[in-house]
């Protein structure tokens, strides 16, 4: 009897968690689809109406920038930790990276605000937004990359060394190709974080109603998550429609990236 009550409570807990998941997806997808039109992709935002072309392109640019700065450090750091990180230095970096993932993104955003925006005088800009996002995603990428590279069998490295291959060749020609699907997964997950991030961008990338003109500093840029946050609090129905359309684009992108990441891992049997 007690067992039955216990399992029922557990099942209820699961339902309580699963319901919001489906409700969030249902709400954002249904309201987002209702707001869909070709104009979303062709027009820029005009006050709280118009389209999302500026925000869509801005999100792509900022995320690409984040990967540009983040991947070399994240993946490079991960390789170092996996290949040479068994000493005390590796342990410290590993620990620091874990702690860094736990620091609220707004704190990192404020750090970027006082150093890049006001300190270096970059103003709200693509460069400041990308660098901020890169700081956020680097520790995730480093730890994930390390994790997958550690699964590459040691015997393969030893075989390559035995053939007289130098360190660089062993890593680039043997370890890296085998670990590549896992590294790709870590890059994809970092991309998903970049696309969904909001708080640190508000005071580093700013917001713009216009398409980006290509200036790295001194020119603010729009992005989708800003539309969600800012427009849902406006009274106009057109603003709500844009917020849900932006929410739809963000969540579909993030889900698609996560599914792709899982598929990459599964196809190569990385999870064995």
């Amino acid at each position, binding site marked *: 009897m007690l*067992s039955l009550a216990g399992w029922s409570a*557990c099942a209820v807990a699961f339902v309580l968690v699963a319901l919001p998941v489906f409700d969030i997806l249902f709400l954002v997808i249904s309201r987002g689809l209702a707001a869909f039109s070709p104009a979303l992709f062709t027009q820029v935002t005009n006050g709280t109406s118009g389209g999302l072309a500026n925000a869509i392109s801005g999100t792509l640019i900022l995320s690409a920038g984040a990967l540009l700065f983040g991947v070399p450090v994240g993946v490079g750091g991960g390789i*170092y930790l996996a290949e040479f990180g068994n000493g005390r230095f590796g342990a410290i970096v590993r620990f620091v990276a874990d*702690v860094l993932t736990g620091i609220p993104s707004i704190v990192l955003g404020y750090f970027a*605000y006082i150093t890049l925006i006001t300190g270096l005088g970059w103003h709200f800009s693509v460069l400041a937004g990308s660098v901020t996002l890169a700081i956020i995603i680097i520790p995730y990428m480093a730890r994930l990359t390390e994790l997958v590279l550690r699964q590459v069998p040691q015997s393969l490295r030893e075989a390559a060394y035995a053939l007289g291959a130098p360190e*660089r060749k062993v890593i680039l020609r043997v370890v890296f190709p085998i670990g590549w699907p896992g590294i790709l997964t870590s890059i994809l997950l970092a991309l998903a974080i970049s696309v969904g991030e909001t708080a640190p961008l508000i005071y580093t990338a700013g917001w713009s109603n216009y398409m980006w003109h290509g200036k790295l500093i001194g020119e603010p840029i729009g992005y989708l998550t800003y539309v969600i946050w800012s427009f849902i609090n406006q009274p106009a129905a057109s603003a709500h429609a844009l*917020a849900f359309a932006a929410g739809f684009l963000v969540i579909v992108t993030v889900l698609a990236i996560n599914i792709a990441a899982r598929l990459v891992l599964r196809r190569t049997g990385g999870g064995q």
Partner: protein
Amino acid sequence: MKLRPFRLTLLGLTCLIPAALGAVLLFLALFSWPAIRFNGIGFLLSETWSLGNLYADPVKQGGMLVPIGASYGILVFLVGTLATSAIALLIAVPVSLGVAMFLAEGVSPRLRGGLALIVEMLAVVPSVVYGLWGVTVLVPLVAHVLAPALSDAIGFIPFFRVTSGSGFGLFAAALVLTLMVVPIITTTVLDALTRVPREAKEAAYALGTTRFEMVRKAMLPMVRPSIVGAVILGLGRALGETMAVLMVSGGALNYLPGTINSPVSTMASFIVSQLDSAEQDPTGMAVRSLAEIALVLFIITVVVNVIARLMVRGVGKPARV
């Protein structure tokens, strides 16, 4: 020693990670130093956050130029941060343990992957989308259903007696945080539960337990260190959560929450909501005081995460080397 440019390049890139952490601490501390000196300990103890009169000439106070009447106290936001996180954990811990037990032993292993995926989806949803859902669905639900129901049930405790309210406030913020913390605790505990050795389970069965008793009395105690670590990790996440909380918490200034439906501000949400106003302060003390909030939040979350990592470290390690 042979020079190894490839390894050195990697080492240089790797050094950027601890350098980033050090730079964040250093620059936040340097930038907020005037505010730290001006605010003193009152920063943490005062309920009043006021930018002062920004249109009058600034006055010299304690050797620093500040607007007349400026006062920077974050007690309200400290309380808001701790209260939302505490209520969220109070709900999330039992729910997560229930879900983890359910997925580990309550369903067939074939279903487990798919059902666990649903929980993992919660971790994938961006914070601002939670906010969007919170504003549209959760806040009205809190205002019209959940808060009145709670008030009817245990309204004899003043904290839960809700007479009016828009739904934006402590309760809604805590519920959103709950959803964000649940996947962290659930996945960690589920992972630990599935690694409990079969012998331990069989030993419990041999003592005549039912399946539920086996999970509850034998498996859960075995994974207790993982549970504690996961809960602290979840706490770290809840303390720093920004956008979703900002969107559903109502935002409180100079006002401590009196009931579960009171508007609140957390440290993280306050930084986002106030930077625009703070920039209007010609002396810059407001922006520096916001940096001091970021510094306090940084220290709190680093301490929480260090504790959590040290606790998870010993137990969560895969056997593979």
